């Protein structure tokens, strides 16, 4: 018997009301529904500006979902993050859901190692153990050791992106959301990140990723979701 989906999106809709531009209403998504199971990787594709990132951000709770449901299996229960209290969203982020944004939100003056270790500290794990694990993650992602104690604000785009990935995956979330995780990486690092994501999927994580690069998408996708004209359709993976 198949287990319940990790993520179940139901009739999600989103528009932006720009009050400073005379109340212009921009519709981005309408009636979006899909399921994602543990150990499954779904890649979201479609032209720029059609709401791929918006969909990820809504699931993460970073954008407000105005209609529909975002059902996530969290601990032993299914919770609806659409319109959920901030405490619930934070709790789901702490232990169930990870998000790799397009750009690292650098905290000024905090060393790379502590940025990566922070999610483990948030789970109450001993700070030294958290740092040890962060060292492993950064080493795996080929960040040179001499950069561990440096705040990543001065890192290159590719280095920042790997710090971002390390931070978001260090606590092994059950649901992983990724927005162009390999966009600014060279080929060797792209392969490393790809392998890391495949490992996450193989340990049972549900992975939902926006990826433009056709090869990377093909290497990772079990399923493909296309966004066009506010709606999503599922396409078979070539």
């Amino acid at each position, binding site marked *: 018997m198949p287990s319940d989906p990790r993520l179940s999106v139901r009739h999600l809709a989103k528009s932006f009301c720009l009050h400073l531009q005379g109340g212009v209403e921009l519709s981005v998504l309408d009636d979006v529904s899909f399921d994602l199971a543990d150990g499954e990787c779904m890649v979201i594709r479609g032209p720029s500006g059609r709401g791929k990132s918006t969909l990820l951000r809504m699931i993460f*709770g970073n954008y*407000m979902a105005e209609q529909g449901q975002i059902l996530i299996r969290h601990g032993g229960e299914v919770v609806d993050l659409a319109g959920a209290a*901030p405490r619930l*969203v934070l709790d789901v982020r702490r232990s169930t859901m990870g998000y790799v944004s397009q750009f690292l939100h650098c905290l000024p003056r905090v060393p790379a190692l502590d940025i990566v270790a922070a999610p483990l*500290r948030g789970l109450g794990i001993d700070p030294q153990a958290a740092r040890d694990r962060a060292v492993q993650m950064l080493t795996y992602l080929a960040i040179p050791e001499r950069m561990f104690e440096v705040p990543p604000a001065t890192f290159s785009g590719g280095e920042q992106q790997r710090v971002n990935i390390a931070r978001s995956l260090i606590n092994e979330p059950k649901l992983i959301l990724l927005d162009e995780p390999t966009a600014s990486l060279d080929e060797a690092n792209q392969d490393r990140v790809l392998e890391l994501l495949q490992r996450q999927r193989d340990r049972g994580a549900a992975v939902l990723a926006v990826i433009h690069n056709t090869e990377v998408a093909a290497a990772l996708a079990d399923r493909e979701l296309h966004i066009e004209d506010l709606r999503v359709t599922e396409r078979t993976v070539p």
Partner: protein
Amino acid sequence: MSPILEARQLIKTFGRIVACDDLDMEVWPGEALAVVGESGSGKTTLLRCLSGLLAPDSGAVTFRSLGGETSDLYAISAARLRFLMRTEWGFVHQNPYQGLRMNVSAGGNIGERLMAAGDRHYGRIRGQATHWLNELEIDSARIDEHPRTFSGGMLQRLQIARNLVTGPRLLFMDEPTGGLDVSVQARLLDLLRDLIERLDLAVIFVTHDLAVARLIAERIMVMRDGQVVEQGLTDRVLDDPQHPYTQQLVASILRL
């Protein structure tokens, strides 16, 4: 788990000005909440009402101590309120001159709060003062100096040390980095972030600086004319603001 502090139907007026217009809110243990808005939006008045400094015209503020015992701030005795203020919570003023005594040494400023909470052991008080000076990155060799010789950033750190020495679970802060140089402000924010996480403090702080709010608080309340116009997760409110006023605030941030 229950909220550490709850306010219900809080109303405070100054003549015809309504500073708190029927506000409901709560803060949970270990949660950092930012209250933002322009000058005159009522945020400082709200903070003063919540922290027992200013009685509202009507409404209730309830504090819940670790054992689950609740105290209605404006129904308990003045002595009990004073005790709670000295032990269970701290208040960091924007102007450190309001929160420190300038004619008492740095160590004395910290120790005074411990003594007010009932400690009488000189060696232990001095040891604690030294410990908290170190925690706030103030050279403990300056323990016997008067704070008037301290820089603005040091004064603010001393004020925080004085508040934390009794191990409060809730900290109120009114523009704690207002009036400081940018680099001094950055260092203070780093320290605060670290302390809030390590001590599992609940924090309610007022700021007009959205970048500071994003750095420190996981939850945010946007106030205008004594009312909360929008609230929620800090990243959600700042990245996808719904209310026209919040959109205007976010659009006004200077980006480098």
